[in-house]
């Protein structure tokens, strides 16, 4: 198998709060003969797409990153974070479809020597890469472990699906890319009605009550439908759903906690890459469930545990 080479933009949070997402993905991609080259000079994506018609300045960050990706000579730019994916794709669509804004944006590109017209780089999310370029079957060939009767709740959140033009699934109202991925890897996923609902997003900064309420609704729905774990690919969904569970538990008698993991963590465990995970980064510890299902060793001490 030849090596697939693409540019990679991690974004801010994968280097800090979401380390598990980055380390497990990069090891997994190595295993799949994908070479993800981090751009030497990427910019903040802005995290949330600016919706005001005249707010062109907020598009400069993502567009500068796309210019760097074009300059790298590689055709594709891999992103893992859902918020990076959303802002990069939407900024790209804007430049592609709006000539007036494209020229305005280009006027701000003082240091960039390359023009960008919107379609020279393909922004590809990890899920799309796995589905369309690597193929779920090829991924399955690399897996060593059996997930047994593990049941996961595949949680999409908003940024991978809305708006429709940039969705990672052809049916954003009723997506199946995550469930299809798990099915191909022999992992059962449960349907739960909150899988495409919002976690409260950046309201986590000053409207904690909103996020408490969202986390309660989403996690309770996953538990009620029989899930052992919630699996996501968005670092902000991950944070809200994981870190808020103690707060939800305080206010909700009988609340059952459920661990939250990145999709790449599960895949890495199935591929036998246990050492790539730092379980201390979880608020709700996934180790008891993972041990019970045979995904981590009964007595193996994972990074940092039991010190």
């Amino acid at each position, binding site marked *: 198998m030849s090596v697939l080479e693409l540019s990679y933009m991690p*974004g*801010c*949070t994968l280097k*800090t*709060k*979401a380390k598990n997402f980055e380390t497990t993905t990069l090891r997994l991609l190595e295993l799949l003969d994908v070479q993800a080259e981090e751009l030497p000079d990427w910019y*903040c994506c*802005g*995290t*949330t*797409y*600016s*919706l*005001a*018609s*005249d*707010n062109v300045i*907020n598009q400069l960050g993502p567009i500068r990153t796309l210019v760097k990706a074009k300059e790298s000579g590689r055709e594709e730019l891999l992103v893992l*974070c859902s*918020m990076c994916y959303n802002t990069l794709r939407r900024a790209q669509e804007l430049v592609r479809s709006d000539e007036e804004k494209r020229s305005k944006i280009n006027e701000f590109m003082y240091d960039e020597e390359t023009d960008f017209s919107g379609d020279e780089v393909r922004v590809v999310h990890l899920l799309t890469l796995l589905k369309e370029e690597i193929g779920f079957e090829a991924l399955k060939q690399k897996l060593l472990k059996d997930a047994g009767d593990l049941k996961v709740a595949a949680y999409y959140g*908003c940024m991978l699906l*809305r*708006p*429709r033009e940039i969705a990672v699934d052809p049916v*954003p*109202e009723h997506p199946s890319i995550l469930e299809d991925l798990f099915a191909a890897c022999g992992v059962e996923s449960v349907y739960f009605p909150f899988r495409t*609902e*919002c*976690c*409260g*997003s*950046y*309201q*986590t*900064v*000053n*409207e904690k*009550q*909103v996020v408490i*309420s*969202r986390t309660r609704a989403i996690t309770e729905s996953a538990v009620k439908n029989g899930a052992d774990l919630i699996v996501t690919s968005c*670092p*902000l969904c991950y*944070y809200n759903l994981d*870190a808020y569970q103690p707060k939800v538990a305080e206010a909700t008698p009988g609340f059952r906690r459920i661990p939250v993991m990145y999709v790449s963590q599960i895949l890495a465990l199935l591929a036998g890459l246990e050492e790539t995970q730092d379980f201390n980064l979880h608020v709700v510890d996934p180790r008891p469930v993972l041990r019970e299902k045979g995904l981590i060793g009964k007595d193996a001490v994972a990074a940092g545990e039991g010190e």
Partner: protein
Amino acid sequence: MKIQLSRQALLSELREQVRDLSEQNLLACYQCGKCSAGCPSIEAMDVMPSQIIRWVQLGQIEKALKSKTIWLCAACQTCKVRCPRGVDLARIMEALRQLVLRENLHYVHPNMISKEDLEELPQIALVANFRKFTP
């Protein structure tokens, strides 16, 4: 709630600004309420998202600007994708926030955020919050 309708309100500059900043056809909404039904923040709102667009239609922009609702939007786009009339309400919410923020008013100020939150919260949450709630 009593609303005084007037020709001036309907033709006001503020209403035009909302239309231009959001690039939405404000009159397209027929008040079905689907946006309010799907909104993840609704329980914390003082008025419903569908009421906000009704106010905007009727030129009652100042009322909308004083509501807490516009600051509870998480830009999740659920209202936009469900609207049978193709209205992007998230853009109207953004336009309304911009009218306040462009008076150099902060809805959130970095000084208001606790040290604990600054250490704990992922950067994407902080950056997004500042993007939406600071001038």
